[in-house]
């Protein structure tokens, strides 16, 4: 399964990129994040993040399908 991950703010700094396509056996948002965390050394645990799939917030145990856009949302600081 291949998913497209977008990174923003400090996650993009840490990953050194704003986007990547990954082939993974992982099938939930949670497991996709844990793989990315290992790969890039992210500081955030999932308790500090939210996750969006295809442009909508979802729960961490949501299933992720081939071709999905997955985004980990660190605490926001707009305004």
């Amino acid at each position, binding site marked *: 399964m291949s998913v497209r991950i977008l990174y923003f703010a400090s996650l993009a700094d840490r990953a050194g990129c704003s986007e990547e396509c990954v082939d993974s056996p992982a099938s939930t948002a949670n497991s996709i994040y844990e793989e990315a965390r290992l790969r890039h050394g992210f500081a955030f645990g999932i308790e500090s993040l939210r996750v969006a799939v295809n*442009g909508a917030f979802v729960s961490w145990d949501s299933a992720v399908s081939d071709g999905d856009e997955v985004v980990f949302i660190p605490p926001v600081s707009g305004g």
Partner: protein
Amino acid sequence: MILFRLSEFAIDIEADRRAIDHPAAGAVVAFEGRVRDHNDGRSVHALDYQAYERLAESQGERVVRAAVVRFGLHRAVAVHRVGSLVIGDVAVWVGVSASHRDAAFDACRWIIDQIKADVPIWKNEHYADGDSGWLHPDGSPTSDLPE
């Protein structure tokens, strides 16, 4: 009609202000969040805003529409900048009109609070000492968090 938008360019406050006029509106409240020259005791000289645009737009729209219903507004608009800003620039503008001032104040405040809590936009502050960092809501940069 779109009630929330992201803008790469300076916000035209006067145009947005006119968009919330309504003959039954006795009260208009507008909030401007501006880039200020300091934060947490550090001297700031510029900043960038980054948004996950697709979700920011849908979440922002949801917030403003919810406020219209919840507070019985006549009109409401919110705009958030993305990109590079300097001191004094308007980063976010929220304007609402209502029959009475209670609803207008409460709604304007509620919208900006919701935007700050739920809309995926992040601020990167550039400090006078050359340092910079992405901010998260407790006000502290996270780029140097322990791994």
